[in-house]
């Protein structure tokens, strides 16, 4: 067995969370604003009107400021798999590395090459080639999201691979299964459309500020129309892809769904919690109530989880302690089998090293019996299989409630802008002003649900986070954590200040 320094593991977790959350402040804006810039520029090229060129260049400036810090905070994530999660990198590099390499070859170079044209090519290339370059940057940005999300989805639902006991790692056996993993498809569509939505909210925020201040009114209204249409379409898409994601979670990660709902006892039919106050002292298997207050939609969770209004949805206790009626095996039983798999793997490796073919074959046969429980063998207790419930529950509510509000906001802005009365709607503009901030909350909450909700697993069922780390001391990670916190915070302050200044300067033509 491996000696595990849990203090170090938690610092490694914290560092990854810190760097990923900082990165995700900027990425969704890049994903969506790149397309919005392409829309604005397409209108300019189509109409030939310079006001659209000014609008394009204005949003492009904000895009560039955001893009730079997105790139800066992104490089660490690729290398952090190696620096802080080297056991993980070895165990799954055969599968996980490929999407990252493809991302580099096909997406990053598209962005990097055409980015220079987008910003410096206005007088160096033709109008149409410039437009083409802007579209290439948008497509490249979103292509990069495809591959990293394929990699992330594989961790949530490992498919297309087999464990090789000789090399002690998971190896890819079917590339198409990895790429077209249903979780990957749902994750990409949901994540990219949420990026479009967030960027549209950002445009509403800046434009609302102009309307409140009475500056750049025409530019603000034109921007609102394009962003509202894009945002409205995206937000509807987000709802449908979110529904698909929830369905996938219920099928592949039922523990995450139970944590998202704060549901300890399985229900048939099961209702969806609209809002509640979670009992933070509640532990699996105890007699305490899970909620101090819980408002539910009856039947809805059953439908979301199984596409059937009267189906059974397991709770945390069912999944931890087993439920024979629903044919759910307990975690204790899986841990026992996992520990046996670990012992058989060790016997296999010893026998192979000593070139004893009979013992090698016996150990391999025994290992294969319990192979799929390998990851459970590293858990110390059944309760360790439960993710942090209150955080997962509340993060899901924030995402869900805000995600339901955004289509209404876009519809209202679109309606009043089309009627040319939006500047007079003093009750609406403050909502527009905070829309970008709400978008960040929703987006970050979505990732908290996805990543906190899958704890304790780095790879579901196969590798817990605590055995995925590099053999470092906690002190090393504490120092780099502090450095990242300081550097990223300084850069974030710089980004916000520059962005605010550029917004106050406004588009070129109205200076």
């Amino acid at each position: 067995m491996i000696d595990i320094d849990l203090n170090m593991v938690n610092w490694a977790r914290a560092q990854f969370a810190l760097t990923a959350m900082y990165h995700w402040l900027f990425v969704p804006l890049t994903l969506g604003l790149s397309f919005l810039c392409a829309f604005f520029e397409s209108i300019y090229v189509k109409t030939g009107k310079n006001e659209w060129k000014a609008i394009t260049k204005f949003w492009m400036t904000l895009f560039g400021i955001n893009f730079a810090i997105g790139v800066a905070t992104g490089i660490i994530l690729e290398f952090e798999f190696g620096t802080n999660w080297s056991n993980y990198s070895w165990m799954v590099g055969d599968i996980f590395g490929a999407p990252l390499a493809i991302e580099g070859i096909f997406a990053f170079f598209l962005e990097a090459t055409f980015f220079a044209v987008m910003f410096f090519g206005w007088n160096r290339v033709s109008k149409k080639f410039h437009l083409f370059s802007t579209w290439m940057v948008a497509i490249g940005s979103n292509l990069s999201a495809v591959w990293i999300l394929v990699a992330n989805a594989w961790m949530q639902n490992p498919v297309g691979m087999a464990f090789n006991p000789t090399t002690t790692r998971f190896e890819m056996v079917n590339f198409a299964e990895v790429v077209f993993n249903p979780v990957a498809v749902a994750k990409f569509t949901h994540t990219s459309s949420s990026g479009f939505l967030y960027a549209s909210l950002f445009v509403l925020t800046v434009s609302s500020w102009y309307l409140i201040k009475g500056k750049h009114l025409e530019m603000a209204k034109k921007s609102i129309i394009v962003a509202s249409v894009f945002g409205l379409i995206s937000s509807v898409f987000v709802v449908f892809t979110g529904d698909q994601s929830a369905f996938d979670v219920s099928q592949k990660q039922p523990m995450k769904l139970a944590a998202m709902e704060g549901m300890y006892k399985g229900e048939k039919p099961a209702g969806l919690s609209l809002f509640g106050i979670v009992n933070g002292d509640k532990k699996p298997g105890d007699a305490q109530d899970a909620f101090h207050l819980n408002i539910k939609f009856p039947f809805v969770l059953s439908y979301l989880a199984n596409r059937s209004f009267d189906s059974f949805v397991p709770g945390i206790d069912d999944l931890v302690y087993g439920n024979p009626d629903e044919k759910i095996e307990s975690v204790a039983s899986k841990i026992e089998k996992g520990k046996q798999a670990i012992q058989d793997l060790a016997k296999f490796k010893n026998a192979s090293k000593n070139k004893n073919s009979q013992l090698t074959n016996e150990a391999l046969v025994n290992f294969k019996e319990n192979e799929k429980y390998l990851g459970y063998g590293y858990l110390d207790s059944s309760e360790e299989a439960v993710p942090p419930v209150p955080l997962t529950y509340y993060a899901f509510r924030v995402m869900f409630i805000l995600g339901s509000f955004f289509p209404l906001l876009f519809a209202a802005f679109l309606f009043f802008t089309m009627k040319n009365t939006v500047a007079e709607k003093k009750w609406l503009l403050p909502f527009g002003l905070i829309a970008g901030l709400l978008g960040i909350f929703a987006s970050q909450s979505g990732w908290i649900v996805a990543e906190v909700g899958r704890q304790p697993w780095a790879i579901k069922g196969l590798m817990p986070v605590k055995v995925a780390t590099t053999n470092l001391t906690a002190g090393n990670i504490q120092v780099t954590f502090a450095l990242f916190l300081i550097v990223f915070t300084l850069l974030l302050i710089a980004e916000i200040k520059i962005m605010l200044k550029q917004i106050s300067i406004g588009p070129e033509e109205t200076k």
Partner: protein
Amino acid sequence: MIGSLDYSTLQQLWWMICSIVGALFLFLTFVQGGQTLIWQLAKTDHETSLIVTSLGRKWEMPFTTLVLFGGALFAAFPKFYATSFGGAYWVWMLILFSFIIQAVSYEYRKKPDNFLGAKTYELFLLLNGVIGILLIGAAVGTFYTGSNFVLSDYNSVTWHYTLFGINLRGLEAAFSLFNLSLGIFLVLNARVLGALYLLNSIDFSKTSELESRTRSAVTKNFLISLPFLLYVLISVLVMDGFGFDSAGVFQIESYKYLNNLLAIPLLLILLLVGLLLVIFGVFITVFKNSNKGIWPAGLGTVLVGLAVLCLPAFNNTAFYPSKFDLQSSLSIYNASSSYFTLKTMSYVALGIPFVLAYVVYVWKLMDAKKLTSDEIKNEEAY
């Protein structure tokens, strides 16, 4: 065709691909080299803007190539990725920090209300150019001199080098004269390339003094780099290396890298032709007043880089040797991905020429006209 390649051929092919990406990165470090010249060459704000804008139009290329280099190593040689990045933690962290601060510096330097001030962002660019490239050179040096790690039966890496009770996690690479010399040479070579690139990219008709300072920087940095280059070359020829026998048992071999050069003459040719091209690029710049020296010198750097990265990997050599536990050393055969993954990735790699083609096309399109002083004043500039 790819389907018919055997496992060891794919392993060699993928080391070649990774080496080509690494060698291209070394050429693209003209951006980092140029960054270290900003304060030395520019005497006015306008000259600073000219240099920064010229480099700024290319800053993403080395950055992206470095990311691709990491991704390709992760995909093709995950044991190296896990061992080196996890083991030599501090070397890689410092390299990464230097690239993090570079990424924002071009965009933010001249923007109003940029919080840290233009000089801070210029300092970030300098740090990226010096520390980033120096440490990358030292890290590449360990391919020849070895590192201090041991791998368990489950391939978990433990690093063994302490100074005053502190595990240096790879920083000790900089204590080796060979590694340090290679790192310093790469910094100086990047400065030569940076100056050559600026000469090719900027229209100096209104800034002739800047041109003469840039031309002089080529000469100075090239001459200063020679002792480091010679030390590295002579060391490679006479040093012991890390080989392995047919059973995969690693051992120290005398004159290993000299023997590799003799056993694989192509590497010797790449090295010599590459060095000659770099010298030719410098020669036509200094003595013929040419502005095209970047191209032969750039190609030369790619060829030398290719030789430097392939020499410690082929002919039964450990490319990431362990000084602490010889049998933990990594070769391209024990560190690679599975046959299936390498084969799949090889199909993907067929797209690389297409990517290179559009990169070259856009580069030519954007650099068709030299960067002028008027452009800095009137149009988009960093």
